[in-house]
């Protein structure tokens, strides 16, 4: 009796709305990674020679490296020769405008709630859409270029703005930074590029929507955002993938560069396919995201809502080099069923009077495992550095787990680092209390989760916040019946 009625453990069919597959002709290369593949990608992208050198160097390094074993996650060994590294929807040559986009692709993104129709966009969000290995469209490019903002695919940036790419690519996340970053450097196929010139406040939100469609493929994209002196940009990122029984690898690199007094706000709503309720399939989301506050009084703020992926391994970080610079990390990581997340941040204080703030909210349900891992380092020169970290965990039911691994390294005696952590449990007793007041399980869980996540949700741009709140509810449906 008890077992069959335990609502928190009750499981319903996984309801992942974005799990469909688009039927489109795709240009696919054979499985496996080797030098030939890298030359093939390089050739397909029509890249300059220095890119080939860069890629090959990364490949050589990668072969000498080992997959990290320290994250608190378990998965069967990945066979890197069994992955398709390049899959691109076939398009008829270079698009002159958005209206030339394949209607099937347009429909796909509309189904995902991404309108590419510039007239229809009320909210002023420019979007670059990446399907599998390539960027298929970017909106508002022209309007943005009029004020000097460059917003385009990475491939285009390599062609059109080689001097910027050459200067900054790999400057924040070196190709040898870690195993997945090295892999990405060798085989990345596309991504988004943003450049905000001096004193420009980007008038619209820039965004990239990542979609995996092809089977057995991996997605390896790079995003590079450069904000010059006194500029501001808010950037959003969303992602989904079809439901499949096999795991798919997504290994991205994101680099942010903030010059003097510049501010970059980077928000992610990550909703990759999480796998089914038994833990089959889903995306391995192994991502390296890092920003550097090079200039004094610059600011980088990461906000992430991580609800998808079978495994999430990601630590959006900030290097606080410029004096008086500020780094922020706001995170909600939700895991349900058999999902695993090991996520957090690194705040590296190098400059004087640098400040950082970390607010991490982990929600675990089902049989999932959710770890926060964070490093706060104050270097010798980080006089008067300040950090405040708060890590809260919410457990729904008693089969899931939450861990907090805070690492603190302080080399300057004037630096102050504060860390607070809490763990709360929502069980049958809490749910029953709500029900006795006329609040059904679903409403109760939404109430509890939204209350818990509010501080981070408030950091998201309005339009995204609504979407993210819905996502939290949908992704918990399985856990509460």
């Amino acid at each position, binding site marked *: *009796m008890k077992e069959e009625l335990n609502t928190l453990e009750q499981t319903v069919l996984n309801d992942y709305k974005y799990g469909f597959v688009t039927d489109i002709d795709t240009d696919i290369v054979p499985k496996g990674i080797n030098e030939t593949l890298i030359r093939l990608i390089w050739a397909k992208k029509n890249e300059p020679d220095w890119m080939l050198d860069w890629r090959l160097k990364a490949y050589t390094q990668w072969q000498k490296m080992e997959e990290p074993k320290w994250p608190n996650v378990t998965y069967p060994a990945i066979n890197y020769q069994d992955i398709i590294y390049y899959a691109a929807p076939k398009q008829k040559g270079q698009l002159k405008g958005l209206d030339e986009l394949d209607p099937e692709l347009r429909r796909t993104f509309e189904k995902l709630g991404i309108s590419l129709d510039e007239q229809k966009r009320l909210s002023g969000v420019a979007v670059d859409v990446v399907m599998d290995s390539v960027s298929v469209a970017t909106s508002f490019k022209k309007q943005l270029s009029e004020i000097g903002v460059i917003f385009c695919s990475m491939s285009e940036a390599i062609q059109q703005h080689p001097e910027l790419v050459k200067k900054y690519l790999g400057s924040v996340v070196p190709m040898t930074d870690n195993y997945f970053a090295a892999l990405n450097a060798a085989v990345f196929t596309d991504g988004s590029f943003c450049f905000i010139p001096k004193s420009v406040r980007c008038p619209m939100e820039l965004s990239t929507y990542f979609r995996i469609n092809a089977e057995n493929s991996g997605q390896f994209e790079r995003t590079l955002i450069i904000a010059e002196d006194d500029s501001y940009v808010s950037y959003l990122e969303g992602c989904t993938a079809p439901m499949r029984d096999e795991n798919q690898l997504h290994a991205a690199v994101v680099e942010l560069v903030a010059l003097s007094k510049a501010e970059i706000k980077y928000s992610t709503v990550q909703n990759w396919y999480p796998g089914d309720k038994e833990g089959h399939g889903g995306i391995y989301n192994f991502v390296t995201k890092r920003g550097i506050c090079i200039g004094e009084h610059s600011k980088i703020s990461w906000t992430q809502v991580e609800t998808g992926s079978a495994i999430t391994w990601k630590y959006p970080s900030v290097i606080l080099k410029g004096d008086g610079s500020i780094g922020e990390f706001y995170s909600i990581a939700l895991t349900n069923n058999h999902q695993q997340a090991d996520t957090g941040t690194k705040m590296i204080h190098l400059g004087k009077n640098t400040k950082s703030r970390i607010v991490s909210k982990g929600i675990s349900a089902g049989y999932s495992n959710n770890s926060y891992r964070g490093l706060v380092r104050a270097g010798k020169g980080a006089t008067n550095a300040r950090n405040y970290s708060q890590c809260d965990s*919410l457990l729904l039911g008693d089969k899931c787990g939450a861990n907090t691994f805070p690492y603190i390294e302080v080399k300057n005696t004037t630096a102050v680092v504060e860390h607070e952590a809490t763990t*709360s449990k929502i069980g049958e007793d809490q749910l029953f209390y*709500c029900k*006795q*007041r*006329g609040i*059904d399980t679903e409403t109760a869980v939404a109430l*509890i989760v939204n*209350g818990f996540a509010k501080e981070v949700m408030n950091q998201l741009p309005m339009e995204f916040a609504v979407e993210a709140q819905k996502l939290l509810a949908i992704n918990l449906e399985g856990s509460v019946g």
Partner: protein
Amino acid sequence: MLSIKNIHAAIEGKQILNGINLEIKPGEVHAIMGPNGSGKSTLALVLAGREEYEITQGMVTFSGKDLLEMSPEDRAREGLFIAFQYPVEIPGVSTTNFIKTAVNEKRKYHGQEALDAVAFLKLMKEKMALVNMDQSLLSRSINEGFSGGEKKRNEIFQMAMLEPKLAILDETDSGLDIDALRVVAKGVNELRHKDRAILIITHYQRLLDYLQPDFVHVLYNGRIVRSGGKELALELEEKGYDFIKDEIGLTAGVQAGIN
């Protein structure tokens, strides 16, 4: 209003309620007393619909409807309220937001529109005054870090906000200081109404002095073994439960003889 017929209930294979019969009519105040572990809270939880209990026999009607067929939330929306003996803490949800959700869920169920912020605030103010509820508690997570007495008072506050048809108060008087007890009693008395019934579970005479119940029942081993007027409570206070146990021992013996 509430009619309990021969309810038997078990948890984890252990039989707790062994045939309870009880009729409660609108406007009445009943009290249930009985030694620790006799099944008083179990009865309240069974009526509220706690899933862990297995109802092995019997039936309950509430306002003419089959109570046991209803989900716990619908029972609440129909007007059943339990002031819990051990109110739970819910982190991250403010008391105000919690109660607002509860009030509006009930309104929705009855086809009424949700209260707007102004109307809700007005209702809150009114009911807060009724139970001397401390304003600062309302913005805190519900029951989290509340003192024992604050939790009990919060239960009565919620009762006042939800205006139930039948309120079951499970040892709301335990852990209250003298002033708080008076306030709770006042709150309950204000709620007394010809269309409303109250069932008080208690170990003490004090609250009953204030509330003057119409009926007092003694629960023992999952059965109501004595019912009477308010003087029964006085008798219990004076003599303890032993005299009742003796009586039942006798009754049980007689029954055994008959069978």
